[in-house]
C-alpha cells in the first residue's frame, strides 16, 4: 500500500514537472515581455507556495498518525527477541499465528544492522534498525500465513547480504 502511494505520487508529480519544463523549453526561443514574465513568475510562485501548503499540511498531519512508534498499545500476544550479529540473525522463534499482536524486540550485538521483514512475495512490510546498546520494538499483526524472511537493511560489513532469518506465521491461534 505505502509503496503504491510512493510510486503514484512520485510518478504523477514528476511527469507534471517534466511536462512544464519541456513546455517552457520548447517555447523559450520565442520572445516575450520580460516584465510580464516576471509578474507571471511571481503569481506562479504564490500559487505554488499556497498549493504546497494546502497539500503538505494535511499530508503531514495524516501521515503522522501512522507512525510505527506506538508505545501504548495493548500487551502483545507473542514476543520475539531478535539480535543482529555479523553476519547472522539470532531470533527466538515462538509460534506466531495470524491475527496475534506480535512484539519484535530488535537489538544488535556488534554493529548496526537493519531488521527488514519481507512477506512471501518478497515485499518489505516493516523494519527497524538493530543498534548496539538499544532495543527497538516493532509491533505488528500478521494478516497472512507464511514464512516471512528477515533481510539486513543496514550495511554491516562484507557479509551484509548473507544475513537471512525467518519468522513463520501459522493459521490457527496457538
Amino acid at each position, binding site marked *: 500500500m505505502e*509503496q503504491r*502511494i*510512493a*510510486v503514484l*505520487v*512520485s510518478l504523477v508529480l*514528476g511527469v507534471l*514537472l*517534466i511536462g512544464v*519544463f519541456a513546455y*517552457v523549453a520548447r*517555447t*523559450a*526561443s520565442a520572445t*516575450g515581455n*520580460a516584465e510580464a*514574465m*516576471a509578474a*507571471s*513568475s511571481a503569481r*506562479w*510562485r504564490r500559487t*505554488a*507556495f499556497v498549493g504546497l501548503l494546502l497539500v*503538505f499540511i494535511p*499530508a*503531514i498531519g495524516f*501521515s*503522522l498518525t*501512522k*507512525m*510505527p*512508534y506506538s508505545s501504548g498499545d495493548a500487551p502483545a500476544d507473542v514476543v520475539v527477541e531478535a539480535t543482529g550479529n*555479523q*553476519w547472522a540473525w539470532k531470533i527466538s522463534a515462538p509460534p506466531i499465528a495470524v491475527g496475534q499482536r506480535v512484539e519484535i524486540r530488535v537489538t544488535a550485538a*556488534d*554493529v*548496526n544492522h*537493519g531488521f*527488514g521483514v519481507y512477506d512471501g512475495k518478497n*515485499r*518489505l*512490510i*516493516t*523494519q*527497524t534498525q538493530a*543498534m548496539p*546498546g*538499544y532495543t*527497538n520494538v*516493532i509491533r505488528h499483526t500478521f494478516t497472512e500465513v507464511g514464512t516471512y524472511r528477515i533481510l539486513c*537493511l*543496514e*550495511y*554491516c*560489513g*562484507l*557479509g*551484509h*547480504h548473507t544475513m537471512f532469518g525467518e519468522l513463520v506465521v501459522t493459521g490457527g491461534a496457538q
Partner: protein
Amino acid sequence: MTAPARALDAPVVTASTESQARGVVALYAGITALVFALLMVFGLLMRASQAGVFTLPPDRFYQILTAHGIGMVAISGLGGAAVMWYFLSRYVALSRGILIANLVFFLLGVVLVLGAIFIGGFAAGWTFLYPLPARSVGTWSAAAAATYLVGVVLVGVGFLLLFLDTTRAIISKYGSLGKALGWPQAFGNSTADPPPPTVVASTVASIINIPAIAVGAVILTLSLVNALAPGFAVNALLAKNLIYFFGHVFINSTIYMSVIAVYEILPQYTGRPWKSSKPFLLAWNATMLMVLAVYPHHLFMDYANPTWANVLGQILSYTSGLPVLAVTAVATLGYVNRSGIKWSVTAALLFVSILGWSVGVIPAIVDGTIAINRVMHNTLWVPGHFHIYLMLGMVAMQFGFMYYLASSRGAADTALDRAAFWMFVLGGLAFATVFLASGAMSIPRRWAVHLAPWIGLDRLGAFFALIVVAGVVVFVTKFLTRARSISA
C-alpha cells in the same frame, strides 16, 4: 587616508587575479570532471555485477561502494567549491592561497582514503557508521580504518579552511553575515540593493558547512579512537546523529554551491539578470535554518531516537528544500520562458539541472514520510531519489559550469556534445527510475549479491548506467581538451 568608497556590487578582482583564479578553478573543475567519470564507472561496475554480467567478489564490491560514496560526496564538494569560488571572487576578495590549500588537503586525504580502501581493504561504507570501522571481523585492519578516517578528516580540514575564508571575505565586504543574507531587505525596510544571489547562496553554504564539518571532525575523531582503542566506546545513537548531521548538511551544500552556476550563467543566455528578490532572500534564509535541523529523517527507523526529533525531521523534510527550490524552479521557468534563448549544451544542462533537482525532491519527500519510510528506508528507492537530484541536479549544474568555461574559450557545441547531453539526461533519468522501481519492489540497497527475482531490473539499470557513462565521457573529454586554454 581612507580608501574611496566602492559600491557593494563593484568587482573586486583585477584581470591578473581573475586569470590566476581561473587557472586554479580550472584545475578544480578538471579534477572534478575526471573523478566524476571514474566514480560513475565504479557505479556501472556495481550495477553490472548485481546484474550478473560479471561477478565482483563481495569484498571488492563493498570497497568500490565505499569509494563511490565517499568519492562522490567529496568531489561534489570540490566541484561545488569551484563554482562558488569562481563567481564569488567577483564580489568579495577571496584568498587564492586558501583555495590551493584546500586542494592540497583534498588530494592528501584522497590518497589516504584510496590507500585505506584498495590497499587496506577498508569497506565500511562512506558513512563509516560507528562502530563498523572498528569491527570488520578481521576483513580490514584497524590501521586501514584509521587511515580512512584520517583521510576524511584531512579533506574536511581543507573545506573548513575554504569556508572560513569565504566567511571572512563576505563579512569583510558586507559588514556582517546578516547583511550578506539580505536581512535588511528581507526583514527590514532597506531600499539598498540586496546582495547578489551568488553572495547569498555562498553565505548560506559557508554558514551551514562550518558546524557540519566541525561535527564531522568530532565523530571522525571518536571513531578513530575507537578503531585504535576498541575499549573506548561511543553511544551508537549519538554517533548516528552526528554522522547524519554532518553528511546531510555537507551534501546539500554541494547543491547550494553549484546552483550559483545557474544564477550566474543562465542570465547570459536569457538576457534576464537573476535578482535577489525578497522571496529569494526569505527562501534562502529559511532553507539555511531548516537544512541544519532536518537530518533526523535519516533516523526514522531508529525507533529509539526521540519521537519529537523524528516528527520534526518529517515536517522539515517537507519544508526544508522547498523555499529555495520553489523560488529557484519558478524563477528559472520565468526567466527562460519566451526569453528568445538560443539553446546550447551549457544552457540546457543548467536548465535541466533545476528540473532534476525539482523532480528528485518528490520521491525524497515521499521517503521523508515516516509511515512510508518504514517500507522504503534502505531500499533502492533511496539511491533512486538522490541520483535524480544529485546526478541530474547538482552534477548537471557542475557540467554546465564546465561547458561554460570551455565555451568561453571558443569551444562550440558539436553534434556529439548534443548527443552526450541527451544520453546523460535520458539515460540518467531512466537509470534513477530503475532504482526507484527497484525500491518500490523492496530491493535492499548496498547488497553485493542480488537475488534472482531482482536481476532483471539490475540489467536495465546497468544498461542505462552505461549510457550515462558514455555521455559523461564526452563531457569530460570536451572539458579536459579545453582545460589548458581555460587556465591560460
